[in-house]
Structures are given as C-alpha cells and as structure tokens.
C-alpha cells in the first residue's frame, strides 16, 4: 500500500482527467482538424492544411471581434467596479448576515439563464417599468429614446449575468485577509488617501459615464453632443473622485488591495472569458450591428454550415483570450498570483 502511495493523487484525478480527455481534448483536436479543412456539408470535409480559413475568418469579422473585446472588457471592468465594493462590504461589514448576503449574490442562478435574460428584455424595454416612467411620466428623455437594442443593453445583460463570478472570488480573497493587518497598517501611520483616492475615483467615475453614454450611442459628434458628453464625463469624474477621496484609505491601498489581487485576477477571468464569447445577450438585448464574435460562430456553425470558418474563429478567440490573460497576469504581477503565501 505505502509503496504505491504516489499513485493516489493520480487516481483521484483520473475521473476528471478522463472527462477532460473525452469532452475537451478530443473535440478540440477534431476542431483543429476542421479549422484546416475544405469542402462543404453536402460534399464532406477534407483535411487540407487550409490556413486560408484563419486568414479569412480574421479579416472578415473585424467589427464582431471589436464588439466582443469592447463589450467583454467593459462588462469585466464594470463588474469589478460594482463587485469589489460589494464583496468588500460582505467580507468586512457583513457580520452575521454574511451567509445571507452571499446567498443573495448567487440567488439569480436559481432561475434559468434564458429566462433571466428575457426578463431583462422586458425590464429595459421601451414599455418597461424604468423607461416608461422616465419617458412618459417625467418626460426626461426624448420620446424615441431606447435602451433595448443598444450596446449598453448588451453590456448591462453581460454584467448582470456574470457579476456573481466576480463577487465570489473577490469575497474569498477579501474574507481571508487578517483584519489585524489593517489595524497594523493604521498603527503604522496609514491614514486617509485623499489625493490618490480622488484620482482613482475620478478615473473610474469618468470611464463609467463615458461608457454608458457611448453604449447608448450618445457620443456621435455629428449630433453636436460633444459638450454634453464632456460635461457628463466630468460630472461622473467629480462624483467618483469625491467618493474615492473619502472611501479609499492608505491601509486599503497598501494592504487590503495587494492581498485581494488574486481575487481580482480570478474574478476578471471568470467574467471576461464567458462574456467575450457570449452570444445570447446580443440575440435578446442587442441589434444586428452589436453582434459579437460568438454570434458569428454560432451563425457559421448552425445556420450556414460553414464549419471550418466557425472552428477557425473559435481558435482565434481562444488564442486571444490566452494572450489577454497572460498580459493581464503580467500587469497584476505574477508573483502575487502564484507566490506560495499563506
């Protein structure tokens, strides 16, 4: 028994490895072959080292790639901006309500993903509870104003969909920070962080406002909205700066933040990867111009039966994600993420 001890971990991993081999590795090999094949569904596919599939796929859908990157990135950024204070609040101030609050975070998962997205259609719709009130009752916005069908609606759907994937890893990272470390920092003269907090807060505030307005299509210069756009961004930056200056302390910047970076990394990846490849939110909340690369892949596979292009697109997406994660890990500092700290 003891002689074969070394086998034990492999035995424990075996079911998972077999599963991955059967349902991940094999299909992927098949996909690689498909992405380099020529032919048609009626005549059959022949493997031909046909790299044109890749070149074509890359060149033909620049808008969709851009949409994916921008929407996925925005969703991740906003999930982070919303999720971090949320996870922080639960971990540090949740007290005995921690479990309940965490349950509420994952509560949406108890409803089908499709139903949730469809209900967002209703919520954001022209006759939905928000817009109808804002437009009809108060007349704050023009009568032809819509949210549904805009990129903003797509990103809002993505944010809603994937927010728990951001909050949970952040919570785990924040929760295990020893609160005495923060006391120690305060003991060692870490006080408020007004200037840095103001800068960080105004950048975040400005970016969010700019993104919301762009998503709603309000950034077009032709309409002469530049002044209004700039004013709104400045206002957002001011509010963000004020919040940042008063809420971000030096002990947070020096201790809490660096110790929560692994959670930020995990959360961002868990949001970014599914968000960038998503196609359901565009289907239900977007418009034809806001189609993401996921929609193209789905369309190529299921409607046009253009398997090689679809497969090539999938691999380009995968490579892109891997490169993005690699760069991201470098930016956050690999040592923080892998260093064997307790």
């Amino acid at each position, binding site marked *: 028994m003891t002689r074969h001890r070394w086998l034990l971990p492999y035995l424990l991993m075996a079911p998972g490895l077999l599963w991955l081999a059967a349902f991940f590795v094999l299909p992927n090999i098949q996909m690689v072959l498909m992405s380099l094949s020529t032919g048609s569904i009626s005549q059959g596919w022949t493997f031909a080292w046909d790299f044109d599939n890749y070149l074509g796929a890359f060149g033909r859908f620049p808008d969709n790639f851009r949409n994916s990157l921008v929407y996925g990135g925005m969703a991740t950024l906003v999930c982070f901006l919303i999720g971090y204070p949320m996870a922080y609040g639960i971990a540090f101030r949740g007290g005995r309500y921690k479990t309940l609050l965490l349950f509420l975070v994952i509560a949406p998962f108890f409803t089908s993903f499709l139903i949730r997205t469809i209900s967002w259609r209703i919520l954001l719709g022209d006759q939905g509870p928000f817009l109808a009130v804002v437009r009809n009752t108060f007349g704050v916005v023009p009568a032809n104003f819509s949210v549904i069908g805009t990129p903003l609606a797509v990103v809002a759907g993505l944010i809603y969909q994937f927010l728990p994937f951001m909050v949970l890893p952040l919570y785990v990272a924040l929760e295990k920070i020893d609160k005495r470390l923060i*006391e120690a*920092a305060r003991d*060692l003269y*870490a*006080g408020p962080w007004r200037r840095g907090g103001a800068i960080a807060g105004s950048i975040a505030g400005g970016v969010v406002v700019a993104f919301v307005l762009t998503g709603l299509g309000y950034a077009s210069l032709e309409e002469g909205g530049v002044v209004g756009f700039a004013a709104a961004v400045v206002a957002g930056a001011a509010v963000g700066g004020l919040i940042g200056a008063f809420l971000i302390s030096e002990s947070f910047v020096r201790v809490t933040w660096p110790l929560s970076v692994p959670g930020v990394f995990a959360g961002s990846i868990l949001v970014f990867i599914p968000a960038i490849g998503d196609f359901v939110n565009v289907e239900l909340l977007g418009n034809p111009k806001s189609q993401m690369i996921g929609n193209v892949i789905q369309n190529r596979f299921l409607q046009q039966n253009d398997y090689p292009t679809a497969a090539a697109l999938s691999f380009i997406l995968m490579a892109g994600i891997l490169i993005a994660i690699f760069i991201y890990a470098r930016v956050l500092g690999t040592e923080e993420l892998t*260093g064997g700290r307790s």
Partner: protein
Amino acid sequence: MPAVDVRLLEVVKRFGDMVAVDRLTLDIQDGEFFSLLGPSGCGKTTTLRMIGGFEEPTSGLIELQGEDVTWLPPFKRNVNTVFQNYALFPHLTIYDNVAFGLRRKGVKDAEVKRRVTEMLELVELPGFERRKPTQISGGQAQRVALARALINRPAVLLLDEPLGALDLKLRKQMQVELKRIQQEVGITFIYVTHDQEEAMTMSDRIAVMNQGHIEQLGDPESLYERPSTRFVAGFLGISNLLPGAVEGTDGSYATVRMADTSSVRAPSALVGSHADVSIGVRPEKIRLREPADRTPDGHNQITGVVRDASYLGVSTQYVVEARGGARLTVYEQNVERTTRAELWAPGEEVLLTWSPDHSFVVVDQPTPAVDGSTPA
C-alpha cells in the same frame, strides 16, 4: 521624578451589556516597563487597544504625554503596537515591513534604509531584508514585529502577549532580549500578559487586572510579598490564607486570632483599621520543625500534621493540616533533609513557624455587589 507618559482616567469600555474595562485609572511613567497582568478575558487587550486607538472608550479619558488622545485614530497617535500574532504584512519583504511606518510618514529613502538597517541590527536580524514573512521562524517574526514598531520611535510601545506563540525556551530568551532592547531604546513599554512569571521577570511595575479593574498595582516584589487581595495572592504564586479577627496591636505588629484560638502576627501597617482579615504567608517562608523545637522569638507558630509530601528535587512540597483544619502548602529546600528517611512523612506532627514580617494581609472587603464574587 519622571514624567507621566500615559494616563488613563476612569476609562470604561462596554460591549453591549458586558463591561470589559471598568473605571480604570492608571498613570504610566516615562521609560518604564509596565505590565498588565491578569487571566484571560479580564480586559487587558481591550485596555491596550484603547491606548492604541483601535477601540474608543465608552467613557473616560486617555492622555498621552499630557495630550488628550481619547478620540484620535491610531495613525495620529505616537504609539506603536506589537500585535498578538505579529500581523506582519505577508505580501511585503522584511525590509518593507520594517520600513512601512517611516514611509507613511514620508521619510526619505536614504534615511529609511539607514534606519531599517540599524533596527534589524538591534533585533539581531541583519541580512533578512529580502525575505518574506513566511520564510522566517516564529521567533524571528517576533523580532521583525518589534523592529517594525520601534523604528518609528514612538513615545509608547504596546505589546499584546508578544511571546505567547513561542515555545518555552525561546520565550525565556526573548524575555531577556525584550528587556535589553527596552533599556537600550528607553521607550515606555506597556506589556500585556497572563503569565505571572513573565511579568515579574521583565516589569518595573505590574498592574494585576481582574474583571475589568485593577486589583493591585506595584513592583513585582511588593505584589508577591505583600498581595493585598485574595485574587492577587492566588494569581501570583501559591499562598496560604488564614482567616481571623484582629485582636490588638503591640507597636509594629498586630495579633490576629483564628477560629481555632491560636494566634498569628502581621505588620500592623498592613492590617490598618480592619477587624476581619486573612493572614497570608508564602509556602517558602514557612519552616517546619519538630513540635519540641524552640521557635525563634516573636515568630508565628502553629501546629499541624503532615498530610502529603512530594519530592521535587530542588525542594520538597508538603501539605500540612493545621490544628484548625486549614491546609497549608510549605516548600522546604532540600538542604538539611535530603533522603526519604530524613524528609517529613505524612502523619508526622510538625510545628510551622515564620517571621511575622513575612505575613501579608488580605482584606475580604464587603465590596458592592458588582464584583462580590471574588474568586477563592
């Protein structure tokens, strides 16, 4: 006369209904090694945290070098803390940990480097700059925590059971080390511990705490030799207490008669004007003699029967039952008697004698109901 460094005035801390610190008043002198000693849960940490600024008192006043700091946050107090489990920043190197406070205060890099190097030498850890806290031992982490606090040259250093996580040998070594460092830097230390031996080894003065208040305050010798409450007598070592009624005073000694009609004497200054007291005596102060032996003039003497004897090597511990039924513990150095045949045996009748100067007096005050349940 040294200046008062820290002053607590009528400080109260409540957590809900629980009174953790109860009207604590305390003056700590500049440059002294001061200990808060007491059992777990008596309010030591809470007191320390209020001085550090991590808790706000429910009422009362805290002064630091004459300045009211009661409501100041920690980063505005010239006080630093060595936390119970060190609380070193795991993501920073030892160098950055030690430099943390100076950098927050905006000290120049060259100066930071000079002082960190100097401080790591003081705690005997030169060359550890680039390690992470996970790469050093518990004793070393302890020194880093000390260096990280001391480098800021605070007026007062607070230490909360800093040696609690170390093994006995290392703890003894660090006690000596801490005392050396304290004398070298001349900073006031406020040291929290539940270990009476540790407090006695290092402290200039000790405040013994019980249930949120100070039972007795004094230097280690006077606390041990002349405890004034039952709690202190029991918490600092073993003590024998004989209850009785004060009968009269002949100059410097008062006579106290016990229930079994025998009487003992104690310094009258300790008895004061109380009528009912308990006379205490430490086990090593008592001598055991043959009943027929002559007792030195003026010494207290009571008769008893040996009930138990345990040979401990350096000494033998006896339990002797006095005539009135009280059981006394007696330590006898194994000098005159060393073999089993020579030791006192259970059942033997003995005379217990001690100098009246070695008697101390514990008054069982009928204190108000708040802490009427003084432990026996």
